[in-house]
């Protein structure tokens, strides 16, 4: 299968590889996929006080298209607000990277990763607002209990 130039570019020069402190209150972490499926993406965002995503990092186990999709996702979320980041759709990623039909699932996974990271961040924020120490478990318990 021939890869598009953009996939090759992201694969060869991935943007924003790395890790953020997953325990920090201003960091949201999303891990999606499974090793048995051949794809695992971890996408992290760091949100500033204005609600703008000022940093994003990823690590991905997967094919070139999965790596490119997550690399592109980190590029796109940076500088957006949480609400704006939620607007990113997998079809946009498909279009930008010219993914063939068999690789569409990579873009879906990248969208899922963005959403999971945003949800994790919002959960932490809620936990903080209700006075809990910012642990997501506490937030979970609070929500389920309430």
């Amino acid at each position, binding site marked *: 299968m021939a890869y598009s130039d953009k996939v090759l570019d992201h*694969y060869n020069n991935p943007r924003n590889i790395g890790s953020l402190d997953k325990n920090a209150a201003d960091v949201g972490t999303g891990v999606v996929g499974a090793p*048995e499926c051949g794809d695992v993406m971890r996408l992290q965002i760091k949100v500033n006080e204005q609600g703008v995503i000022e940093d994003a990092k990823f690590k*991905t*186990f997967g094919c070139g298209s999965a790596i490119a999709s997550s690399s592109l996702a980190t590029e796109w979320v940076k500088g957006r607000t949480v609400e704006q980041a939620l607007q990113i759709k997998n079809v946009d990623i498909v279009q930008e990277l010219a993914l063939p039909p068999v690789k569409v699932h990579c873009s879906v996974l990248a969208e899922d990763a963005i959403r999971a990271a945003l949800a994790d961040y919002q959960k932490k924020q809620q936990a903080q607002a209700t006075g809990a120490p910012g642990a997501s478990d506490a937030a979970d318990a609070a929500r389920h209990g309430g």
Partner: protein
Amino acid sequence: MKNPIYLDYQATTPLDERVLDAMLPYFRDKFGNAASRNHAFGWEAEKAVETARGQIAALIGADAKEIVFTSGATESNNLAIKGVAEMYREKGRHFISAPTEHKAVLDPLKRLEQEGATVTLLPVDKTGQVALADLEKAIRPDTVLVSLMAANNEIGTLHPLEAIGKLCKARGVLFHTDATQGVGKIPIDVERMGIDLLSLSGHKVYGPKGVGALYVRRRNPRVRLSPQLDGGGHERGMRSGTLNVPGIVGLGKACEIAGAELASETVRLTNLRERFLAKLRGSLDEIYLNGHPTERLPGNLNVSFAFVEGEGLMMGMSELAVSSGSACTSASLEPSYVLRAIGVGEDLAHTSIRFGLGRFTTEAEVDFAAERVIAAVKRLREMSPLYEMAKEGIDISQVKWSPTEH
């Protein structure tokens, strides 16, 4: 050094120049139909075909009369399995094979099953071999055929053909082996090994594509087959169709060369393979050899590089032509069924790469390839969340993942 480096010799092999030279006259002046009995053109073609028959028979310890030409190993397997099933229907309809066989064996068996036959697939151990005790237990009074491959195309594991053949003979069951990967690579002797039917292919032995053969035993016992192609009654009635003379000449020459070079190539390729593996192991942790450590094709290495997905890895070493057991490389979404059958978890199956070494592989190529693999694996592990988790001491298999349905 040529780039990319071809390391996919189990997929196909380049045509040997000596084979091409032998074939060329049969595309030009010597174009006769081997079935033309009345003029020199036909005689010339027939003579060439008979020479090839002898060359192929010599490589596997058979008689020239026992070689039936086909279009390739897929056809040979179909003819052996379906031809025996039809011919011996009165005797029984039970077949024995293994889950690691090529689809060209499994799918004909599946078809027989749909038509009312019973198929037993023997369990294989983690190296890919069947246990003789299991085979012995599986044989029933109505068993007509055991089909077990000589060497596996993905993991290179060899089956103990002689022991299997002896057992089949003792129990009066026919033994077919798909020797597509084994012929010309490992010593094969149909007499000593008690093989009744054997499939082989031209393009896996540095011969042309589109030609193969089926060995059909003529005595002790005389194996009979129902033809699967009806027509002019070529090949003693077992396979009608005008013979592919240039292809057959090439297959014959390829077998002659393979036989002459088998001993020295076995040593050379085994050394290259072990050199390659030693280099990988010297620089990378968490890599796993799939298949048997020693009972394997000299030119086959199948390795799982934990935490690095196979297709992503191949993309990172585009100077190498290899293949992967990862789902992403094939039309199906499942990872390799062979790796699954030998108990390799799906997570590790996705990280497997098959390296196929062959006649034209050099030491310099192997060294270069090892360097490229090591660099690509290291780079991708730095990008892998799984590698990071493993280094933090997290047991990946205990993590609750959220597989998404796509």
